[in-house]
């Protein structure tokens, strides 16, 4: 088993600053979940589909959660969601949008495409850490995936 085969959280985030804050917050939570960070939608799809740089990854090792930013280079979050949620092989993987946008249109469109949840990134880092703790407690400990 390669070291990316037991990843439970896929973080899709182009901002290094935000990604580091979120990873630090998750590390403080009472979960032992391994996280893998990718910086855009193309890498996210390759990870899930085990293609490109992730060619050797086992497709059966599905993350318990994809934390997905919306605005990203190359391929944005809504396009990633459209791809994953319209594919029988990947539609059951929980996706939580985590973005700085709280525009009604983004929220509505995310749910229409099948987002499992939607969280607006808090601006204060203490609030962001609290949000990550709630996300981790629910999605990694309480929620059940197929």
């Amino acid at each position, binding site marked *: 088993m390669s070291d990316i085969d037991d990843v439970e959280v896929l973080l899709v985030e182009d901002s290094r600053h935000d990604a580091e804050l979120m990873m630090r917050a998750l590390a403080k939570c009472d979960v032992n979940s391994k996280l893998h960070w990718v910086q855009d939608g193309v890498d996210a799809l390759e990870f899930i589909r085990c293609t490109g740089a992730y060619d050797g990854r086992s497709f059966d090792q599905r993350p318990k959660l994809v934390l997905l930013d919306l605005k990203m280079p190359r391929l944005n979050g809504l396009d990633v969601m459209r791809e994953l949620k319209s594919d029988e092989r990947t539609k059951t993987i*929980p996706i939580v949008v985590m973005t700085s946008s709280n525009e009604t249109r983004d929220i509505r469109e995310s749910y229409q495409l099948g987002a499992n*949840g939607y*969280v607006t990134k808090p601006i204060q880092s203490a609030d962001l850490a609290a*949000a990550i703790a709630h996300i981790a407690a629910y999605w990694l400990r309480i*929620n059940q995936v197929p």
Partner: protein
Amino acid sequence: MTDEFQNVDLLLVEDNEHDAEMTMRALTKAHFLNRVHWVRDGVEALEYVRCTGAYIDRDPQQVLKLMLLDLKMPRLGGIEVLRELKTDPKTIGIPIVVMTSSNQDRDVTESYNLGVNGYVTKPVQVASFMEAVAQIGMYWLLTNQAPTR
């Protein structure tokens, strides 16, 4: 318009009175002041969401932050409720978490295929049950954003 369902954030769809009461008690114990409305089967759940039947006077602008949905219920089961609500563009955005005693893989997979937002197997131990409900509240009532109308 006075609406007795104003500010209801959580619709609890559960035929078992004991489980329903324990869920509501767990939320209160975790200091959630959100209003909960409890219905006992899928028919009532659909009437509530669609503002029909007994809920004809409910204000459709009042949206839920969460529906907690049992699977095995009389009249109309949870799977059918999911199928109805998640195939209708008007209701697809309502966050629905299945909470059931079944952890059969078939139920989990079917729920996700129908578009469920989350799936929780009811813990048997009371303390674990209370804890699970508290975490559900922390995420779905405090952290997650549901669509507005």
